């Protein structure tokens, strides 16, 4: 038996016992969790250690790590904590409408950094933590793809 460690949102989590996963359409990840007396519809996506399970319409990110993978992940995480700047990236593609900060500004956690228009809505990008803006890589009027760097915070 493989000893997996399961985490959801960084928290350790024990899998429910007594449930079997039965594929309904494996190519689409459509499945059911069944126990002796009940059946719960799910969609399962992912591979290796990274999974997303949709349950009651909610997408739940689940990391399933072997002991070896966990040790490696912990090491990487420590490294990230010690590394300096945080890069703020676009979480969805769209048009930059306004940029609210300049290089050198000190921002609080949650402060609005810029507004991006996507799906016809104005979406605000906020600072993931407090810090000083050390680079602004976009300007108003520019179209960005998902994952594009927007700012660097020191």
């Amino acid at each position, binding site marked *: 038996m493989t000893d997996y460690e399961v985490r959801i949102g960084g928290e350790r989590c024990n899998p429910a*016992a007594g449930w079997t996963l039965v594929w309904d*359409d494996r190519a689409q990840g*459509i499945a059911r*969790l069944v126990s002796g007396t009940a059946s719960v519809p799910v969609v*399962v996506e992912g591979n290796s250690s990274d999974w997303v399970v949709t349950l009651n319409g909610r997408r739940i990110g689940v990391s399933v790590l072997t002991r070896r993978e966990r040790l490696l992940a912990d090491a990487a995480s420590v490294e990230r904590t010690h590394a300096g700047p945080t890069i703020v990236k676009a979480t969805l593609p769209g048009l930059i409408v306004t940029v609210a900060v300049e290089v050198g500004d000190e921002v609080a956690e949650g402060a609005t950094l810029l507004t991006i228009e996507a799906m*016809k809505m*104005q979406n605000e990008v906020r600072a993931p933590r407090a810090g000083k803006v050390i680079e602004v890589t976009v300007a108003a009027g520019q179209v960005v793809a998902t994952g594009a760097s927007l700012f660097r915070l020191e």
Partner: protein
Amino acid sequence: MSPPPPFGRLLIANRGEIAIRIIRACRELGISPIAVHSDADGEALHVRAADQSERIGPAAAAESYLSIEAVIDAARRSGVEAVHPGYGFLSENPAFARAVEDAGLVFVGPSAAVLEALGNKLAARRSAAEAGVPIVPGTTVALGDDPEPVEAIGFPVMLKAAAGGGGRGMRRVDAAKELRPAMDSARREALAAFGDGTIYVERMIAPARHVEVQLLGDRHGSLAILGERDCSVQRRHQKLVEESPSPAVSPTLRTALFESSRRVAAAVDFHNAATVEFLIDVEGNHYFLEMNTRLQVEHGVTELVTGLDIVAWQIRVAAGEALTADVLEASSRGHAIEFRLYAENPYDDFRPTAGRVTAWRMPDGPGVRVDAGVDRGTELRPEYDPLLAKVLVHAGDRPAALARMRRALDETRVGGLETDAGFLRWLVDDSAFASGDYDTSLIASRWVNGPVLTDEEAALASAAAVAARMGATTERPEAVPEAESDWGKQARREALRR
């Protein structure tokens, strides 16, 4: 046997689920449906469903679906006789309606003059007030830089775009100090969305229900009033859920709403399909909000309770047909509800998401209707509205309709991107929604960013992920060798109750 088609070919100047809805109406009427597409939509579902599709420009809507010139060119190239604009995009644009008519084609909608008179929400407010219809207290002229008219109404107020629609350019203002930035931001959003930054102000009516009345008129002066829809479940002033009849509307109020709707329509030379929107306050007073001179997203709710095909009738009256007694005397039967499935994250303020649809299974069976705009493999683009599909149910009464919707949602499976399905699944069991006694603040007051993930859900999701990692032949998740825990039993009971 079947009547001759109203038109030989018809151009659908839209995309997504509404283009497919119109294509289906065309097929049933014997009309050859012609689609249009931007470069982003070359392989979209609506293109595949049509007989032919004309390219109208690059991905950006302003250069394709919003380009009057490009759409008129496509109509000319494809030799259609009529153009259906759907909703959104050019559907309420008087210049487009005029361009269609100038090209010698039939515009499936009211005349350009009606679009003009009612498209400006300020002008519509004046017109309704003149017709003796109660309007929400506020200004009937454009708001300038002077905050005085706003302060005279008293906070909280709603700022709205005169050219508005779909919640764009709308801002709630609770205090004088928020007014200036809200006016600026509303003007900016309105200018970006409609090319017109004019705004006005209305008193904030809260708590309120949002109820609308469906109209269908022909070119011979007949007007059918096809019942009301309740659209009070909203986020960002945009509708997520609609139902008919409205649990908040008494027979007396219904009569008053219908009479007000009739007056608004009579004030213009109205024909085709439109919706008159009202707010209802806690005392049961109704206030005219606006009249949308086009097909609504939620028209299917009315089709289910009346048994009529509103889209087919739009096309038929556009071709000059008169409404029949069936339509003019239509009555409502049972209860219908629509839940909109959007690519947006309900746990993050319903922020739009993007990505590829990797799993797609829609419900069917008795009393369920799905109008979908995507299928498996569709890439959701940030340029367009994130509506994936509308799931509609019809049943004998409201409790049966809710039970049917719960069943339909449990059959629905979408993978690959975040959707509002988690919210919808919560809503169908929410006590306020289930009671029918809710108002436009439901999402803001009861959902916020949704319930936290329960231990049961986390444990089930974990079990699924571990089993998936271990392979399909796994008989049980092996990560937890101990005996079944108490909440495991609880989860099964929960599962059983569903």
